[in-house]
């Protein structure tokens, strides 16, 4: 197999679908949907090949790509001072994120069958979004990362604003403003780093920032490092989101079409966690350590704040939105613990929540399609009319509240295991969140499925054939990780070692 352009092909393969779609007439609904779905498959297949190659011990380095792109600066003094290369590469963590993205994209494409209008534009944007997401995780330098990061924003903005629900424009704008601000802050950090070190390559940056006698273009003081880390925290904190920067995300969860929320909650939010781990922890390990306590505190705040607010929502989508905030608190808790267990827990939570959120939002789509509502009150007694959907909804809730045997437990357990070692009191107060999670999820899910039927279920069909695919795949993966967590932990080993080396642990 020629590996020369493997990653580029993987990342840009959805563009082929965009190309084909542009030649199709806009009225051919089923054809467009089929093409849109098929276009996500190459990336899926390639990412799975990469995963299994890695598991077979093939080494991810051979996938690295590097092409000279832009050079400038005074070549007389220090060689090509400023160079930006087109470079893609993978480590264990980004490999997992790529697989997650590819899987969720394919499943979200299936979920897009519920989209009612302008399928052509929808799928072109959808596929563009996938390119952006894949690129973010494969990018080996900050500038490329930033470009892909921005590529995700624009399609998302239109997908929310055009195909969403009643207040879609409002949601789309607040998405754009918040993420735009986050991007601006991120860009400043990237530019300062680039200007001072002369490189944007992530590995080179990590080496340069942490060497004893770094070869820098210009010095960087400790205060400045701290400033940059805080800026990164804000930039990625908007994305994650961290309290109190979360309100845009609630709107998006509620207003965007379920297929897009699957990607949004499943992958886009995770870019925040990815960035924090990769850049925050990787490039500024010392500063990260001194902020760890605050991160853990923020994590507990997120966890509890989201959980208590989810408890009083009347709309299931709102419950899930606050639940996402709460679950991202677990990521912060793990990162704040800053030990192997914590960081591994955080990464597990990133993947696990991606799968669980996608599952739950897919199910929202399933019953929204039938009842045009996601209000808990209006859906009561769903198990009577749609027992299979209700069963999967309950399974999703169980996964989300961290039932052992499902992925949520492993991540939650490790994050708390980590935090209890470092800050037992804080961790103990965080465990209230574990109880509250059960409380609000059961309240919402039993409110929907159990009890007296609130409506007539005559003529309502339970899940249809194609709807089984995403649900079964997601439940399967959730259980797989829950029962056999080594599928995730083994590829992560080297990434974790690098991180722990950085923070001197």
């Amino acid at each position: 197999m020629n590996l020369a352009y493997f990653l580029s092909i993987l990342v840009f393969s959805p563009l082929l679908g965009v190309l084909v779609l542009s030649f199709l007439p806009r009225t051919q609904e089923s054809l467009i949907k089929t093409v849109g779905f098929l276009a996500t498959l190459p990336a899926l297949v390639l990412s799975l090949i990469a995963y299994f190659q890695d598991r077979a011990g093939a080494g991810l380095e051979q996938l690295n790509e590097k092409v000279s792109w832009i050079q400038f600066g005074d070549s007389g003094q220090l060689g090509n001072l400023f160079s930006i290369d087109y470079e893609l590469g993978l480590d264990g963590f980004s490999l997992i994120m790529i697989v997650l993205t590819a899987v969720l994209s394919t499943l979200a494409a299936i979920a897009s069958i519920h989209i009612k209008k302008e399928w052509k534009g929808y799928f072109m944007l959808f596929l563009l979004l996938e390119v952006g997401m894949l690129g973010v995780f494969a990018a080996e330098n900050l500038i490329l990362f930033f470009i892909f990061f921005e590529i995700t924003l624009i399609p998302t903005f239109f997908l929310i604003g055009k195909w969403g629900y009643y207040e879609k424009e409002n949601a789309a704008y607040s998405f754009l403003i918040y993420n735009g601000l986050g991007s601006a802050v991120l860009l400043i950090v990237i530019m300062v780093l680039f200007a001072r070190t002369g490189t944007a390559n992530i590995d080179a940056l990590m080496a340069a920032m942490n060497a004893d006698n770094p070869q820098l273009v210009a010095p960087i003081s400790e205060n400045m490092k701290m400033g940059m880390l805080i800026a990164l925290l804000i930039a990625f904190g908007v994305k994650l989101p961290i309290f109190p920067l979360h309100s845009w995300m609630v709107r998006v969860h509620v207003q965007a079409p379920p297929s897009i929320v699957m990607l949004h909650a499943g992958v886009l939010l995770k870019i925040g966690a990815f960035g924090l781990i990769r850049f925050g922890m990787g490039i500024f390990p010392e500063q990260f350590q001194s902020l760890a306590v605050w991160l853990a505190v923020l994590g507990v705040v997120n966890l509890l704040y989201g959980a208590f607010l989810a408890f009083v929502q009347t709309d299931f989508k709102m419950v899930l939105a606050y639940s996402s905030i709460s679950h991202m608190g677990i990521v912060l808790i793990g990162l704040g613990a800053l030990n192997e267990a914590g960081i591994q827990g955080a990464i597990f939570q990133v993947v696990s929540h991606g799968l669980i959120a996608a599952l739950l939002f897919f199910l929202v789509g399933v019953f929204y399609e039938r009842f045009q509502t996601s209000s808990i009150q209006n859906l009561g007694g769903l198990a009577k009319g749609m027992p299979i959907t209700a069963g999967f909804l309950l399974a999703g809730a169980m996964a989300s509240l961290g039932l052992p045997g499902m992925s949520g437990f492993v991540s939650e357990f490790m994050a708390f295991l980590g935090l209890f070692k470092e800050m037992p009191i804080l961790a103990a107060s965080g465990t209230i969140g574990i109880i509250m999670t059960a409380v609000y999820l059961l309240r919402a899910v039993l409110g929907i499925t159990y009890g007296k039927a609130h409506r007539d279920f005559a003529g309502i069909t339970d899940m249809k054939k194609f709807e089984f695919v995403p649900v079964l795949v997601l439940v399967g993966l959730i259980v797989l990780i829950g029962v056999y967590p080594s599928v995730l932990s083994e590829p992560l080993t080297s990434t974790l070692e690098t991180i722990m080396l950085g923070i001197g642990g």
Partner: protein
Amino acid sequence: MAPALKDLFIRSQSGTPCSRVCSKKGIVIMMENAWIIPLFPLLSFLFLILFGKRLKEASAYIGILFTLASLVYSLLVLFDRFSAPTYKAEGVWLTIGDVQLTAGFEVNQLNALMLVIVSLVSFLVHTYSKGYMQGEDRFPVFYAYLGLFTFAMLGLVISPNLLQTYFFWELVGLGSFLLIGFYFYKEEAKAAAKKAFIMTRIGDVGLLIGMILLFWQAGSFEYDEIFAAVEAGAISGTMITLTAILIFVGAVGKSGQFPLHTWLPDAMEGPTPVSALIHAATMVAAGVYLVAALFPLFAASETALMTVAVIGAFTAIFAASIGLVQKDIKRVLAYSTVSQLGYMMLALGSAGYVAGVFHLMTHAFFKALLFLAAGSVIHAVHTQNIEHMGGLWKKLRVTGPLFLIGTLAISGVPLFSGFFSKDEILIAAWAHGNTVLFWLAVIAAFFTAFYMFRLFFLVFAGEARTDMKNVHESPSVMTLPMVVLGVLAVVAGYVNTPWFGTFLGDWLVEDNHALGHGHIEGPAWIMIVATAVSLLGIFLAWLMYGKRSLSRDWLTSRMPLSYSVLYNKYYIDEFYSMTVVTGAKFISSFLRFLEVFLVEGLVKSVTGIISALGRLGSKFHNGQIQTYGTVAFVGLAILVVIYAFTGGYLK
């Protein structure tokens, strides 16, 4: 299991090494494969979830056959364990840095005994349900859930470490939750299922915290390594006490001990076979099992033991007092279960390891019997209110005597199983010096005999108090399992008696001095007192409800207040709803207020600032060259100033 995975398994060094020697004799073969026991019901679950709809009521046979397989295998393992040492095998489950978390299974005395109890009761309940659940729409689902629960419970009892125990601990909770909420369209069932899950989860968090703290102290979740660390003094006394009590919180939740007991009586909303299996014999005993499995940890802290004993004794008398006045046949039994579990906790807390485990076993048999018999009564008369029953002795010729056997056993009447195990508990409490707790337990024993015979007389004696048509005995598929349990409820006590020998006790503590003695000597008068109070309770119940020479309300009319306090279960549910539930709602409302005003305010100000900046910027765009020039000049000036101060670079 693929050979590759099998290679992963590390043979444990613990216990006496038993490699080829035993294999040659063919002894360990069964124990080596004990991991297969939980898998049978798991297969049953998976199979029925997938194909149950087509099988309809034939699903019962699948469930029954698979649990029979578990039962047979468990019995073989138990017989193996009589002659072979503890067997343990583990493989790596998850690697975190240098730490390897393992999963596997262990067969020691306690596990082997529990395997048999669980698979036996489960098998009998599977059989019984075929009759009880007949005609139910979701018959296959019921059997699937039973399989899931049995899988989890069997997995729980063969876990060799705390993490794995916790894993299955939560899964049995899931099984319980699903089965309580089996009649999901009933609001009461929905509320009860939710309550059971949440209340036990509160306890589980205690267990989780205790387990994690213990891990960072002992460096392992393995039971044997934890005990080794405790014994070596590697863990400070405070830490032992703290972790033991936290773990006990988990047991309190699962075993329905005060103050987390309120879910258990509500759990009676589930079908009655479920109450027999989960909420009498197995899952609720898991808390007791957990304390027993971690006994060396508890034994290392007198404070922890005392906590266990006090909570146990208090729960025993507290729940028994509520049981005195309840009118629902299943609720009386539920409070009785809570009370009996309290006895077991009292035993363990009084260092009576054997007594606790012994009572766990006998209770599993007679309480499962009582529930199944109650189910048979409900099946016949279609009500659970004992005020509406009466005179069933003549109509239910099999159920009646069996119910009587169960009642005699639980009341501690001599020669029945409960007599011997309760006696052990009282002796343990006395010998450990818990005099107050001992007398509480004696009073609770009196209550127990009274409310159980009150129940018996109200249901079976006298004449029918309402018009009941078509009352007939249950089919043999239901009565046969009851007969088996009835036999066990009589004879199970004889494995451990002061008269014929304490076989069970000696075997349980064999090779493990941390568990104490197989038999604790106690004064002979204890047995006499226990017998006397139980007979007294029966006599009083007979006077009031059997012979009716005493008016039924001679006591309640004198103490209406205490009656209504008891009848309303000490208003604990109301108390929780006023404090905890209202508290959570208040916090949520407060945060919502914060969300609306503070966070949304932040959003408004961010957008406000941006649009203000935009407006400001656009003001300079007025087409006047002078303005542009000024702006450019001011900007340049600022840059120059910055440059001058920093020497070109911001540091």
